[in-house]
């Protein structure tokens, strides 16, 4: 079973790389731009199977550290993108989403490789309980939405820059309209904000009554880091939400916040992961 985990752990980045190449071909060669990608569902299935396998091995959902979370984030981003693609029948933005997904999964697989090998000889220690899982899943849903918001925000900024400079090149031909990119950025950001708000509000309830004992008395450095990152994310995005709803901020400003906010979160998550 551990051998299978190792194989899948290295297979997943390759699969996402293949998808990235496929979407790259769609973007650059403008082929099958309006068709659904038949490989999305099988890749999601394989990734889900890998995570289930890991759960069986670990005796818990694999959300214990930064790198396991990145893998779940890759799967969730792919799943959300699959829904978007299936609904819009437009795969022109897939390359950008899978660039991010590939980086998530590659980073995750790279660091998890050593862990899985170690688990093969050592007994796995169960770390947390059901309420923790719910809390983590809510947080992951928020970060996934922020990731997608950042991708579409970046595309929006690129497209706008091109239109302003009157460049009728690759992006002019291949990207969806500015209007649509702006809407996708905003909706994803709003979704992420709702999830992170729920995550923060329910955290004391879920973690306080959970089996992990992460109460106010037992807050360790890792938990404090997570609280700080969550709070910073919430603050960044609440500004964007209020600006859009009350200040009628432009799509460009929302896109800039979506990109900047996500970059800040990623840096904080990676730094905290390395330090811990």
């Amino acid at each position, binding site marked *: 079973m551990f051998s299978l985990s190792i194989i899948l752990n290295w297979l997943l980045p390759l699969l996402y790389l293949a998808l990235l190449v496929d979407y790259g071909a769609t973007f650059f060669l403008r082929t099958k731009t309006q068709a659904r990608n038949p490989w999305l569902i099988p890749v999601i299935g394989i990734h889900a199977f890998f995570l289930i396998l890991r759960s069986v091995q670990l005796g818990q959902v694999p959300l214990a550290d930064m790198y396991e979370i990145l893998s779940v984030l890759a799967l969730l981003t792919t799943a959300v993108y699959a829904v978007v693609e299936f609904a819009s029948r437009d795969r022109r933005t897939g390359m950008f989403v899978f660039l991010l997904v590939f980086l998530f999964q590659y980073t995750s697989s790279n660091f998890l490789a050593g862990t899985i090998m170690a688990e093969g000889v050592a007994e796995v220690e169960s770390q947390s309980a059901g309420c923790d899982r719910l809390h983590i899943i809510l947080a992951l849903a928020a970060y996934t939405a922020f990731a997608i918001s950042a991708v579409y925000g970046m595309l929006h900024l690129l497209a706008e820059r091109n239109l302003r400079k009157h460049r009728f090149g690759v992006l002019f031909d291949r990207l969806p309209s500015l*209007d649509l990119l702006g809407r996708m950025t905003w909706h994803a950001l709003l979704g992420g904000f709702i999830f992170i708000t729920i995550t923060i509000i329910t955290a004391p309830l879920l973690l306080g009554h959970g089996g992990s004992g992460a109460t106010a008395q037992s807050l360790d450095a890792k938990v404090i880091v997570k609280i700080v990152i969550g709070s910073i994310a919430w603050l960044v995005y609440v500004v964007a939400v209020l600006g859009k709803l009350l200040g009628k901020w432009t799509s460009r400003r929302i896109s800039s916040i979506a990109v900047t906010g996500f970059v800040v979160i990623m840096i904080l998550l990676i730094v905290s992961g390395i330090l811990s």
Partner: protein
Amino acid sequence: MEISVIGINHRSAAVDVRERFALPNDLAKKLLQAIRAEKIFSEALVLDTCNRTEVYFVSKTQQDSLAHLLGHITQLKQTPPLADTSVFYHHQGLDVVRHLFRVAGTLDSQMVGEHQILGQLKDAYRLALDAGTTRFLLNKLLHWAFRVGKRVQTQTQLGRGSVSIATSAVELAGQIFSKLSGKTVLLVGAGETAELVAKALLRSGVNELIVANRTLSRAERLADDFVQNVRAKNLKAKTVCPASLDEQNKVGPELAGPKAEHGSSTGSQQSLRTRAIGLDEIPAVVGGVDLLICSTGSSEPVLTYQNMANSLRHENHPLLIIDISVPRNVEARLGDLPNVFLYNIDDLDMLVARNLERRREEIPRAEAIIDDEVEQFGKWLNSLQVAPTVKLLQQHFEQLKQAQIVRYGRKFASSEQKDLEEFSRGLCSKILHKPITFLRDLTADSADSEALAIIDAIRQMFDLDTLEQNE
């Protein structure tokens, strides 16, 4: 029996000659009925567009088809006969196939890549079907041509991108707005190109138009003319000539209803609301506008940063400004405002030139597809010859015979093997005798469409094409 085409197009003749031989639907129908009645051609189809009039036909005899057809057309149109017939082209055999595939693939069009021709070809086919003048060969050829047209459309970039100023403005708008319905257009001035752009935008779904002019009465008249004009000209359900795209832009969609302020729509027809304002009112309305087209005869900027910036600075929705005037009427600084996208006539020209260049680059790919399809069609046509079909049929039965002997031969003693072989051969010969005689008699009858259809059916029945490929 051979397929032929006789025709006249934008390359072979000027418009004054072409219009003498144009065959609108009613005349095309009469011509097809006449052809059917006299039975000189076994199949016929008339393709008539703005740039071409062509008659495709299948005939058994090598008579002077051109003179014959021209006689019919001059009689139908009651025009004097043409002295110089060199303006007509006459192709036969696979040249017809190549010509038709090029037509379907838009390579023979005046504006390469405008795929409306495929719709026109389908209309022509429908007309011939109704007149009962298409049979096996033209049916096959036309369906093949539709497939070629579709293949060129999907496998090349030949039809991508706008190639007129008006449609390039729509293409630009499409880069900013996901849909144009519900958007408001402000037309400043009364330039002809600006009007074409406005109409192209209206066709794409825009249904609110504000017309601004130096004098209000002139603006009102323009707005009214606009509604009357587009109401009068109905493009609905009409396939337009690809080469006259700019002409198309001079015609609006079927728009209904009284004017906005002056009124709206009726039933399911597209509605148009118009409003007339003076130039001094522009700053007051520009905040609610999504697309602004400017084309005045002024030598000074009409829309300046000073009088527009305040109205636009606080807007959070994009504004696309297309300045078609020369000299420019929109101050360039307006393009620096956060949500303003400012383009001038040079930008649109650049977009058109780029798209035309891209289409040109795609022509070799389209030609390759057509070469491939002509080759395939040629192979298919050759396969309908009697001699190779008879040979394949004999081979097929020989294979069946051998297979059965191998399968059941061991049940017979070795002394009986020879008898078994002879029995099998005799049986196959007897079975094949009548079908082969029948096929050879088809050749004697010069193989008309029915004969080809029979051969095709036999080949399919015994899967002879697979056998031929395996050889």
